[in-house]
């Protein structure tokens, strides 16, 4: 264990702070996929464009929840917007989050206005809810559709830098802390952005595959293969950056490396070296390479990309764990390590984390009940 400063025996940032960047990463990644269709005209992603936007929205709704649970005084959370200290990187959270949430809500409103109108014309609670969402305006014609499309495209374009800002900012929170050599690297915020995109695409592939298999919907092969290719490309960049970060510290052989080498080689050996890199990076890389480069049957290629996406969701979660928890295991005395593993039932424990992570999927299902997120797939099945 060595020597740790007495206040460092218990880690301050728990699994909740692991979950927070993980969820914001899913938001940023899913949003970027929707923007690939809305802004960059990647029409093959039409099938998941709406689903990815809705996914970004529900994950965004729950992104602050782990933070709130972690705060010592959650009732004062709004102090971050009422009395922000602008010399702190963290002070930007409230503003960036609020602007981004507003933008995503507006984009959903413009993208799905037609569906809301169709539902609002019916009867029942959902119709009433849709009328409220539409602010009572059920008018729809060529001109309104064109205006909606234009505004949605503008918002999707504006959302890309905001998504990068939201998640780059999370990386900056860690990267700017000079007291901790495991965090303090300018690469940190770039790594966070790329790993966010990886997790966002992964959750879409995972979820789309699952939904299609459960509902026996035909899978849009063009869309899935395109997502697979994007995932492969982005995961290569993300993993390369993660490796570059640790390699550059190792190569410089500063006095900090003496303790960091023990962190990497012993304390985080299983979660970082074995799991994050050797298993959850290398295997998905090979699976995605096979599904992209080889002429495989659709069913086989889909299964490979599904397994790869699921593993990459784990890889990004491991990366968050190794950054957030790994950085706190090492004492600032550079002479020892503490240990941490979350309890099952404690306030910031594993059950709480699992519940927080499940909630967005439940809300996404409710969303789907109001406005179908896969209208094309459902229509094809009916035909």
């Amino acid at each position: 264990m060595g020597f740790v400063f007495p206040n460092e025996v218990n880690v301050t940032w728990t699994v909740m702070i692991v979950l927070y960047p993980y969820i914001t990463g899913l938001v940023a990644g899913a949003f970027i996929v929707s923007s690939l269709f809305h802004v960059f005209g990647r029409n093959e992603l039409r099938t998941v464009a709406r689903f990815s936007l809705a996914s970004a929205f529900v994950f965004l709704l729950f992104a602050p929840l782990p933070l709130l649970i972690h705060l010592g005084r959650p009732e004062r959370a709004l102090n971050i917007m009422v009395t922000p200290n602008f010399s702190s990187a963290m002070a930007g959270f409230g503003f960036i989050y609020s602007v981004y949430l507003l933008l995503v809500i507006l984009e959903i409103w413009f993208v799905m206005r037609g569906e809301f109108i169709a539902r609002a014309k019916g009867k029942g609670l959902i119709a009433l809810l849709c009328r409220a969402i539409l602010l009572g305006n059920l008018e729809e014609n060529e001109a309104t559709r064109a205006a909606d499309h234009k505004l949605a495209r503008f918002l999707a374009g504006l959302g890309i830098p905001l998504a990068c800002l939201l998640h780059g900012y999370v990386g900056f929170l860690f990267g700017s802390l000079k007291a901790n050599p495991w965090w303090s690297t300018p690469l940190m915020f770039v790594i966070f952005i790329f790993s966010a995109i990886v997790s966002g695409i992964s959750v879409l592939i995972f979820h789309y595959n699952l939904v299609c298999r459960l509902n026996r919907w035909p899978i849009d092969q063009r869309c899935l293969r395109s997502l697979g290719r994007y995932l492969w490309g982005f995961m290569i960049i993300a993993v390369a950056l993660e490796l570059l970060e640790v390699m550059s510290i190792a190569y410089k052989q500063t006095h900090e490396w003496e303790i960091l080498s023990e962190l990497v080689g012993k304390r985080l050996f299983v979660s970082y070296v074995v799991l994050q890199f050797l298993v959850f990076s290398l295997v998905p890389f090979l699976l995605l390479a096979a599904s992209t480069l080889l002429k495989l049957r659709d069913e086989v290629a889909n299964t490979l990309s599904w397994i790869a996406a699921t593993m990459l969701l784990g890889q990004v979660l491991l990366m968050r764990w190794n950054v957030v928890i790994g950085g706190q295991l090492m004492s600032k005395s550079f002479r020892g390590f503490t240990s941490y593993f979350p309890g099952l039932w404690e306030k910031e424990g594993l059950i709480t984390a699992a519940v927080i992570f499940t909630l967005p999927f439940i809300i996404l299902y409710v969303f789907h009940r109001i406005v179908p997120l896969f209208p094309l797939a459902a229509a094809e099945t009916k035909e």
Partner: protein
Amino acid sequence: MSEQRGGGGCGPMDRRQVLRMIAGGGGLLLVGCYPRGKGPEAAEHYWGYAVDTTRCIGCCACMRACRAENDVPRGSYRTWVERYRIAADGEVSVDVALDDDHVFAPVSTPSVKALFVPKLCNHCEKSVCSQVCPVGATYRTADGVVLVDHKHCVGCGYCVQACPYGTRFINPVDHTADKCTLCYHRITRGLQPACVQACPKQARIFGDLKDPRSSINTILRQRRYRLLRPDLGTHPKCYYIGLDREVV
């Protein structure tokens, strides 16, 4: 036209004048609202702290005094004493007296050098903790003390992560950030911090860096001293006399 404009300011103002007045008033308001902390030059004192490691005997009376004075919860530390033992082969072992009675465990292995190093908040001139606090609950007073407003702190723990010296913790009772205040409630009444008063060997020295005749200025003039982690640019105001290179 010129008569209207030069009417001594009593006549009706045109739109441009009104806009100018609004802009000027708004500007003044902004300047007035801008939070400007008073610099050290504005204060009567500028507090500093020195630790003479050549005098510390590791009795930990300071730790007990601090806990009693500031009601520090068990398991958390506003100050502590580290014991460094350096063996003949150069191996360094460090420990802290953490039990309730704060007594170091006896050792049987021989060492060629040993020293005790009291630690506490460094009340840095460029304190990272006050820089990173997202709500401004951590702040520096004009007399150079870094404090936490416990009624405003949200307990996010960012300052705990940012402090390079490990001196901050989240208080398990009120769930806000906590640390050494240099016993601000005492020093503003002309008293010494509890740890300084309790030290039987005068290893802890507190005083006014503005006063050339203060004990802290005297010792800093006479002795060589080191700062902890000077490479981080935090400009600590806790000066260590006789510190070994092994100490971080």
